[in-house]
């Protein structure tokens, strides 16, 4: 069989130059078992060593290879060339993030958002217990789905709200906050409520739902946000009706 080829139209941007961002075409050998990331690595090794992109595990675990593939946010290690062949494939950096270079985006804002929700077990008393905190399987089931996130940021690239509300906490960070609020070992809900309850957090979401559709780990961040809205509303009523009560 003759060597089959496929074209990748790759987004290029250099922070040093004056040129606009451009698309550069690369002709790449086509293999049925290759994913888009394999093609990018082939370009890097054989055609153009200056192309920059992030990747690590090649198995949908590290969350670093997210890019726009034909306009959709995807893990490039999980999309096959064969699903596009023989049409060309357009590869761009994740939308809604500043581009550092080529396909590499800046994650600083995202990491700050993750940190803002205090994603760790908060306990009221200082002393850690002598042994572990016990948890039943049904207590685990409450939050397990929301703990599967790999921080790939695809959900942010699917969210139309971020354009209008740049400081929007966003799907993964809210899902993470909700995950800890649902954890039977955690007592930090009131501490997270401040960041979680505002227009730039749960109430910024209009439930478009595309974050859930693109999530490769079935986290359902859209569901987490709506459930956090319900929790936030309950919290508000509790606060208004029982102002003397414990928050």
């Amino acid at each position, binding site marked *: 069989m003759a060597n089959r080829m496929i074209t990748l139209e790759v987004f290029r*941007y250099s*922070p*040093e130059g*004056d040129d606009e*961002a451009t698309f550069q075409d690369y002709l790449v050998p086509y293999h049925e078992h290759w994913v888009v990331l394999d093609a990018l690595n082939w370009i890097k090794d054989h055609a153009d060593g200056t192309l920059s992109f992030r990747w690590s595990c090649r198995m949908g675990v590290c969350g670093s290879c997210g890019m726009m593939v034909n*306009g*959709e946010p995807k893990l490039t290690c999980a999309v096959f060339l064969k699903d596009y062949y023989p049409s060309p494939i357009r590869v761009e*950096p994740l*939308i*809604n993030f*500043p*581009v*550092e270079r080529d396909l590499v985006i*800046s994650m600083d804002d995202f990491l700050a958002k993750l940190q803002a929700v205090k994603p760790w077990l908060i306990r009221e008393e200082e002393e850690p217990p002598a042994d572990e905190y016990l948890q039943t*399987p*049904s207590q*685990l*089931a*409450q939050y397990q789905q929301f703990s599967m996130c790999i921080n790939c940021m695809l959900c942010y690239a699917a969210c*139309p709200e*971020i*354009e209008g509300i740049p400081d929007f906490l966003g799907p993964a960070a809210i899902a993470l906050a909700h995950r800890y609020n649902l954890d039977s070992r955690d007592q930090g809900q009131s501490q997270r409520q401040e960041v979680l309850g505002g227009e730039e957090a749960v109430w910024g979401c*209009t*439930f*478009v*739902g*595309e974050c859930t*559709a693109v999530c490769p780990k079935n986290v*359902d961040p*859209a*569901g987490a946000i*709506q*459930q956090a*809205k*319900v929790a936030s509303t309950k919290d508000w009523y509790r606060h208004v009706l029982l102002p003397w009560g414990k928050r």
Partner: protein
Amino acid sequence: MRGPLRRPFPRDWFVRNGAYRRFMIRELTSIFVGGYIVFLLVWLHQLGQGPQQYHALVETMRHPLAVMLHVLALLAALYHSITWFNLTPIVMPLRIGEDRLPNAVVAIAMGYLPWVAVSGAILWGVLR
């Protein structure tokens, strides 16, 4: 050195894929739902003005344009309600122990059943 490049979210995002379009339609149907409530309130007010206004209003409502608007409002309200009923299990998942109740069960129990019950009660009140 220019530093990082900002790229805006496409302005035409809501026509870019089926899910975005369905979301937009769901949002737009709320205009019909809200508009119809305003219309009902105005009508109720007119009703209180006496039998003459009432008959005049009934006449107006027979106009094909009025009928068409009613059909449109009904379709919009149905689309709006059904899409939201189907989203209920995502907003308020119910669990029994480790297992999450199937979405269909939650949608029926929390959306469709109360809907049928309330509609039935209203119908009974009107036809009785």
